[in-house]
């Protein structure tokens, strides 16, 4: 059995609907761990306590991915009375020493949220410190930068911990409405989707698939990227949108320099139709200002005009190096780095138009049945449910 004390930041600032946010977070935490073993999660005194019948090492990586968690600590739970707390403190120090034999200095930090507990905190701390030294005489107490900091949090129960792990922050998934992320397979789109999802959105993904102009492996990239996201959100729907007919039509009927802009506009139109079907209120893209020809502010204006939905662009001010660094942290980098071209990298004209006006874009697609093409592609989109758990091969 392992127990964790979870801290949330921003949610505490919420007003009347704080209860909704907390309850969603509690349920998300529970859902993130309950396949590991019987689990329960409760909230009290500004914390969430989760207990799982599983090893802490298995539970920790799960909680680390729950949006809304600011930080958390594996804790030992004791009854709020001196003997039990002392035993817990000595045990926590013991396991910290086992994991890090080089520890030489320590400090005990006591907080009493429950002031009914008799001892003033400082007295309790020095008494507990003396107990640690009696059991481990080679340790020295040190107030500043100790090797080991044992925290004792006395509430309805006492929670004793020796280390704190950072969570992803943000808001609990499911508290922020729905949005549809355009997922190409490159570096940017998964990072953008992650950032948007971290604000509590329920994210679905759309991947535009242009077989035979792209390979099946491009689609697998999108699936694998969504699996990484599912580790944070608990699961998501990936919509694979057949885009071959639109690619062909654009190739045949649109002048070369305008093809990328028109393709992007067609993606927006198709995503717009799909979003309506999914009751999604926004689109999410990985656009970053000035990164490529289609990401000048003029191009973005022309592309944006193809949808009436708000387009969230969490990476708009990011540099490529920052995006790559984030992708490495999120573990999407290796997947995005696979060499299979997605449908954006094929048919790239030698000299794409970088500052198209909206009128130019409309003119360029005059020979396309844009609405019919978008409706048709969205209608034929296929949904795959991507779960957090690793798919079983077979």
């Amino acid at each position, binding site marked *: 059995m392992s127990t964790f004390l979870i801290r949330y930041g921003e949610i505490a600032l919420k007003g009347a609907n704080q209860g909704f946010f907390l309850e969603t977070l509690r349920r998300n935490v529970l859902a993130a761990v309950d396949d590991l073993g019987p689990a329960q999660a409760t909230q009290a005194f500004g914390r969430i306590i989760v207990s799982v019948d599983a090893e802490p090492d298995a539970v920790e990586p799960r909680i680390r991915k729950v949006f809304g968690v600011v930080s958390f600590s594996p804790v030992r739970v004791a009854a709020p009375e001196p003997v039990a707390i002392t035993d817990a403190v000595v045990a926590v120090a013991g396991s910290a020493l086992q994991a890090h034999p080089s520890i030489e200095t320590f400090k005990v930090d006591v907080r009493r949220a429950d002031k009914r507990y008799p001892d003033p905190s400082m007295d309790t701390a020095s008494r507990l410190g003396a107990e640690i030294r009696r059991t481990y005489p080679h340790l020295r107490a040190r107030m500043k930068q100790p090797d080991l900091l044992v925290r004792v949090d006395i509430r309805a129960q006492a929670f004793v911990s020796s280390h704190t792990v950072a969570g992803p922050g943000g808001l609990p998934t499911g508290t922020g409405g729905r949005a549809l992320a355009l997922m190409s397979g490159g570096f940017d789109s998964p990072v953008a989707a992650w950032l948007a999802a971290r604000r509590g959105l329920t994210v679905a993904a759309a991947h535009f698939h242009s077989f035979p102009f792209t390979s099946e492996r491009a689609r697998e990239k999108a699936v694998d990227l969504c699996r990484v996201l599912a580790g944070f959100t608990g699961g998501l729907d990936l919509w694979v949108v057949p885009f071959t007919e639109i690619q062909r039509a654009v190739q045949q009927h649109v002048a070369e320099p305008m093809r990328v802009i028109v393709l992007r506009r067609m993606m927006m139109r198709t995503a717009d139709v799909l979003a309506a079907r999914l009751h999604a209120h926004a689109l999410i893209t990985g656009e970053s200002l000035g990164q490529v020809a289609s990401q000048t502010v003029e191009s973005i204006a022309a592309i944006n005009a193809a949808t009436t939905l708000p387009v969230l662009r969490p990476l708009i001010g990011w540099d490529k190096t920052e995006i790559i660094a984030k992708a490495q942290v999120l573990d999407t980098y290796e997947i995005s780095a696979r060499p299979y071209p997605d449908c954006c990298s094929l048919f790239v004209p030698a000299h794409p138009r970088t500052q198209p006006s909206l009128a130019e874009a409309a003119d360029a697609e005059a020979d396309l049945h844009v609405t019919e093409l978008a409706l048709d592609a969205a209608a034929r989109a296929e949904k795959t449910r991507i779960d957090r758990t690793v798919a079983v091969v*077979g």
Partner: protein
Amino acid sequence: MYAGRGTIRTEMATLIYLDNAATTRPHPSVVDAMAYALTEAFGNPSSLHGVGIAAERVVTAAREAVAASLGVAPAEIVFTSGGTEANNLAVVGAARAARGPAPSEATRRRHLVVSAIEHASVRTPARELTADGFEVTELPVDAEGRISAADLAGALRPETAVVSIMAVNNEIGTVQPLQDLAGVMRAHRAAGGRAVLHVDAVQAWGKIPLQPARLGIDLLSISGHKVHGPKGIGALYVRRGVRLAALQRGGDQEHALRPGTENVPGIAGLGAAARLILADGHAAAAEVAGLVHRLRDQLRRIDDIRVNTPQTGAAPHILNVSFPGARGETLLHRLEMDGIYVSTGSACHAHRPEPSHVLVAIGRSPDEAMSSLRFSLSRFTTEAEIEAAASAVAAAVADLRALAR
């Protein structure tokens, strides 16, 4: 639904597999031989008891079959994990053996000769040997991908340790004039040279006659899965008396050249594949050659194509063709929609086209190289499949060329 098993389009009515130079479908007799090795003869060939002896018998029988298919002695066959390991063992093992122990600087032989179109499993170890002080001479090829005997003669030196030449090129199918090259090697030895000749025969085994002993080839690599055997198994022919340094250390299996418990199921499968070659390899190859000839004729009807496989002196199973104006990778996927599976001549990455080093070596332009497809047939290929494939290719090329305009 995605289940991690990949996306072989099983719902497709047809599956015309023309990528046999990449790998082949295992023959039922291979599957049977492996099943026996896995279920009955599962012992360790080194064990003293009966279960071990049963496994040893499997290995011995396979060794005899492989040796017979090459006309060599069973003791000259070393089983490896495949063609790549056989090539590494040959090139690096022979180079290290020739370098000899210090101190006699004069007896050290630190020169290698390879062709410009060798497989990566020869080129890369050869290149890495330069870090050990070896010098590598790369022999050029002509417009058909062939090495000249004169070039080899010019490259050989008294201190040459290893010459490595592939029998059949894996991309375009060109057969090297092994007889002429072996003649040059004989002259080199007559003049006091001591270089060993290694032949990468991975694409040649079972396709063209190979008589390493008669030609004076010292080392020859083969692989199981190119000839309807299993993956993960191959062999190196090591002519008696040729010195090799092992690349890994352990027990004394395979004359200590390849220590480790034998891959008995793989070896059983390789033996079964060798028996297929012995039984009717020549006839099967002739039949495949007829089909390739037919495919070539059919594809010639498409405008503006370039056949990269030579008309004569090519392996029976490979046909490499460029379709300028259509991208090889897109063509491949377009054919996949019709249930036809081929290979591109050149790998292509998003913004980083990498034309094949072989097609570049025979003088193809980047556009020709990037638009090439390799069709490779097997004994399972039928005439109807070739007809269907040829018309599908014509339609796909027309379609993509129209789009590219």
